[in-house]
């Protein structure tokens, strides 16, 4: 078995030597440098742009403004295209804008011979604005009279969806119900991949070529073509190794602008490299979502009716838009089924930077809210939080009517059991009762639920190509991208397993090129092992069948009598090795009668999807006078189905837990209320966790193979981040009795809440 073994990453050696080529390493150092003039107002109409001084600066090649930009509107979200216009992503951007919609919007650009000249020219550009009132808060933006950010969207509402089930209004009339009514607030955070966004573009052969640090080369190609108003085939996108993405690069960021710029300088090579400050201020962020939960429960906790409102702060442009808010909203009646449910989700434009995809895609926000609220119900009613969750969570056999996803096994109980055992939950919960004093400890839990991939909301597809070499090894190509998560290694294991060749005989073509890579939509939605797995298995099985048909010519054995095992063609009836795959490949390639180059290509369209499950337990020590939380212990338990590569799976969980710890305790983008400017857009002021901020991160697994999956897998990329902030929040509640309904739980907030709780009265 090759599946389930912790093979070393296929890219580990090169990365360990530093020779792996990322986008900047590949760009010719004589490339022209592009820089962007960002607005210093949050909402305005550009009246004029004076470029006369900028043009005089030595080394400047071209200065372009929003008045030069093509009028084509384009979308940026890394979603599959839809042939139905109503399902297409919203086209609301130009490569440079005359209508500034957030502080930092792109109004002009400079192409220069070097970075210094480009930066000086940017400073020399003078922009005259007609300044408009702006709005940063999501609910303020919905009010009548709020600044209108996009013409077509009344009250700035990009989208509003409702889920109605049963009869909420009737159900709440039942006598004896307890009403629990609370608001939960999540903050804006950034992906903070260590490689900033970078791309470069040039023209060659009458086409526009873009090399980009992206998760979604095929989608980006289409977005670039839309932005420039050219045929899709005239654009080529190459994706090299990338230094992390986490969803930010699941968006067309500055590829359309860079592609346009090269067309404005005669097709010369133009590099656009975001600085860290631009990655913070001008790329995408995680949506801040505000939730209002009203639950009606019986004294034993039975959930009778629930109403949820979600207000998602989209920022200036649609990007991934409502999909993120909707994913979270849709999760609530599934995770804790409720007969009478009313849910409303609003995604609203504001004059803030743009919310896009980020690891978890709305689920870290939603999980914080639902798991904080579930804990609040337990606290209010005096119920055991574990027993309550076991009783009310999605039961085994649950099937979602829309996605047809099913909970096949007793996974929640298994995950909870593993987590409780590791962290010694019951003993500690008992020990932490009735604490007094300045330093208190607490322990908390959160469940996690995640929907892998995007079917049936959008197309799910993955294509795969295999080409055999003369030695019986293969090149493996898929459109799904390696972004650090280890996808290439997992894909290689899958191909080796199904084709029957050693792992070392699979040479994955790591980097995608839309000219040669078979179509795939890229890295997102934790779909890599599930979606690409189907493409790979389908291709490998067809390839194997074809190889055995070809082998008949040389072995005289019927194909059904043969198999490929460990790189050999064997006769199944007695296990005899008839020839090696290398012998077959060499012979058939140079056969003067029946020459053939052995290859296979298949597309898998998925019409299924899979739930992914787990939980997190956190133990904290709270220093009340210092308003500090120290995380003492933390464990995530995941049921991601069959693990293709346990070591890489574990590493993936660590990274998600780390992101969740930052989300819970330290990370927050701060905006100036007076100007709308981002105040802490750098790695010093934005508090990303360092190694000192973590305890040991324990990752454990329960493996219930997913019946609909080619290799038993379900999503693992995003889920680990989701339950962490809520588990920490519930641990702080356990320690102090103070319920935090806002993130992050940093000292500023602790001081405020502890003051309100009366902790600091003499």
């Amino acid at each position, binding site marked *: 078995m090759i599946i389930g073994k*912790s093979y*070393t*990453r296929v*890219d*580990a*050696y090169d*990365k*360990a*030597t*530093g*020779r*792996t*080529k*990322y986008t*900047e*390493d590949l760009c010719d*150092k004589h490339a022209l440098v592009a820089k962007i003039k960002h607005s210093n107002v949050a909402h305005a109409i550009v009246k004029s742009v004076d470029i006369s001084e900028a043009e005089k600066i030595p080394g400047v090649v071209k200065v372009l403004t929003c008045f030069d930009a093509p009028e084509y509107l384009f979308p940026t979200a890394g979603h599959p295209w839809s042939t139905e216009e109503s399902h297409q992503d919203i086209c609301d951007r130009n490569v440079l804008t005359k209508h500034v919609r957030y502080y930092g919007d792109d109004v002009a650009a400079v192409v220069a011979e070097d970075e*210094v000249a480009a930066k000086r020219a940017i400073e020399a550009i003078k922009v005259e604005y007609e300044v408009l009132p702006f709005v940063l808060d999501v609910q303020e933006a919905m009010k009548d009279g709020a600044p209108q950010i996009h013409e077509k969207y009344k009250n700035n509402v990009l989208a509003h969806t409702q889920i109605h089930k049963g009869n909420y209004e009737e159900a709440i009339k039942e006598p004896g119900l307890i009403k629990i009514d609370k608001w939960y607030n999540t903050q804006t955070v950034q*992906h*903070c*991949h*260590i*490689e*900033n966004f970078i791309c470069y573009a040039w023209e060659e052969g009458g086409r526009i070529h873009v090399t980009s640090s992206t998760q979604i080369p095929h989608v980006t190609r289409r977005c670039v073509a839309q932005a420039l108003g050219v045929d899709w085939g005239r654009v080529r996108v190459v994706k090299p*190794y*990338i*230094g*992390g993405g*986490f969803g930010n690069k699941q968006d067309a960021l500055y590829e359309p602008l860079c592609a346009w710029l090269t067309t404005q300088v005669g097709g010369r090579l133009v590099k656009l490299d975001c*600085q*860290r400050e631009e990655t913070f201020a001008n790329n995408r962020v995680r949506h801040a979502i505000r939730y209002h939960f009203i639950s009606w429960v019986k004294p034993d906790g039975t959930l009778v009716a629930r109403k949820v409102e979600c207000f998602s702060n989209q920022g200036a442009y649609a990007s991934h838009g409502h999909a993120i808010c909707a994913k979270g909203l849709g999760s609530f009646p599934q995770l804790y089924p409720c007969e009478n449910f009313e849910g409303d989700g609003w995604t609203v434009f504001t004059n803030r930077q743009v919310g896009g995809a980020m690891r978890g895609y709305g689920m870290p926000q939603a999980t914080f809210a639902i798991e904080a609220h579930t804990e609040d119900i337990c606290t209010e009613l005096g119920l055991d939080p574990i027993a309550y969750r076991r009783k009310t969570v999605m039961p085994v056999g649950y099937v979602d009517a829309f996605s047809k996803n099913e909970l096949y096994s007793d996974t929640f109980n298994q995950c909870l059991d593993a987590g409780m055992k590791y962290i010694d939950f019951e003993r500690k919960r008992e020990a932490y009762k009735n604490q007094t004093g300045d330093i208190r400890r607490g322990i908390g839990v959160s469940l996690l639920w995640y929907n892998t991939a995007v079917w049936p909301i959008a197309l799910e597809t993955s294509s795969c190509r295999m080409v055999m070499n003369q030695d019986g090894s293969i090149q493996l190509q898929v459109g799904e991208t390696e*972004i*650090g*998560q*280890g996808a290439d290694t997992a894909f290689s294991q899958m191909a080796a397993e199904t084709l029957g060749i050693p792992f070392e005989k699979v040479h994955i073509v790591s980097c995608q090129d839309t000219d040669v890579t078979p179509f795939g939509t890229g890295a997102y939605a934790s779909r890599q092992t599930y979606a690409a797995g189907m493409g790979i298995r389908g291709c490998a099985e067809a390839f194997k069948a074809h190889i055995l048909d070809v082998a008949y010519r040389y072995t005289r054995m019927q194909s059904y009598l043969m198999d490929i095992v460990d790189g050999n063609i064997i006769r199944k009836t007695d296990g005899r090795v008839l020839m090696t795959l290398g012998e077959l490949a060499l012979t058939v390639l140079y056969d003067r009668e029946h020459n053939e180059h052995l290859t296979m290509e298949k597309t898998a369209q998925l019409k299924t999807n899979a739930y992914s499950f787990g939980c997190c337990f956190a133990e904290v020590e709270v220093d009340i006078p210092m308003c500090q939380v120290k995380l003492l212990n933390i464990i995530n338990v995941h049921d991601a189905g069959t693990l293709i590569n346990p*070591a*890489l799976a*574990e*590493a*993936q969980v*660590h*990274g*998600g*837990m*780390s*992101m969740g710890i930052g989300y819970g305790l330290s990370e927050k983008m701060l905006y100036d209320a007076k100007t709308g400017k981002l105040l802490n857009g*750098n*790695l*010093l002021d934005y508090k*990303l966790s*360092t*190694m*000192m901020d*973590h305890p*040991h*991160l324990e990752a454990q697994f329960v493996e219930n193979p997913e019946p609909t999956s080619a290799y038993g897998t379900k999503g693992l990329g995003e889920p680990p981040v989701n339950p962490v902030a809520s588990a920490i929040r519930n641990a702080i509640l356990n320690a102090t009795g103070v319920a935090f309904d806002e993130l992050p739980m940093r000292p500023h907030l602790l001081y405020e809440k502890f003051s309100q709780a009366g902790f600091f009265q003499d």
Partner: protein
Amino acid sequence: MSNQYKLVTCTINGKERSAMVDVRASLTDMLRNDYGLTSVKKGCEVGECGACAVIIDGECFNSCIYLAIWADGKNITTLEGLTHPDGTLSDIQQAFVDESAIQCGFCSPGFMIEAESFLQKGKIYTDDELRKLLSGHLCRCTGYENILRAVKKVMHKRAAESV
């Protein structure tokens, strides 16, 4: 413009090298652009992320906030200098591979070079000390867990070998 370039002569990964360098250039720029040392990564260019770390005369620095001209006469080691001439990995590189401490790989060179700089001192550190020593490097992929594991492994292995 004649004052804008200076000859910088230094030892890089054991070899004496010279180049005319823009006086405004950072050591990161020089190592990447003049010597093709791609392990020296740019993550922030203001000394916050640690991805550009190199060893200068035995001490680890963020090369992005170290002027190239300051490197004149100095002895510099980048991650490329840890790999043996035959391509085999040094113990710290191998440990990062074996412990799954590398994911996207962008921060990895900085961590490895930092670890090499303090592990050369041959001291045994506590976990808390190691966490502090490595806290100048940011990583979004690994949660630092396997990085710490890899560094500890080398620390103990070297200690055992030196006895």
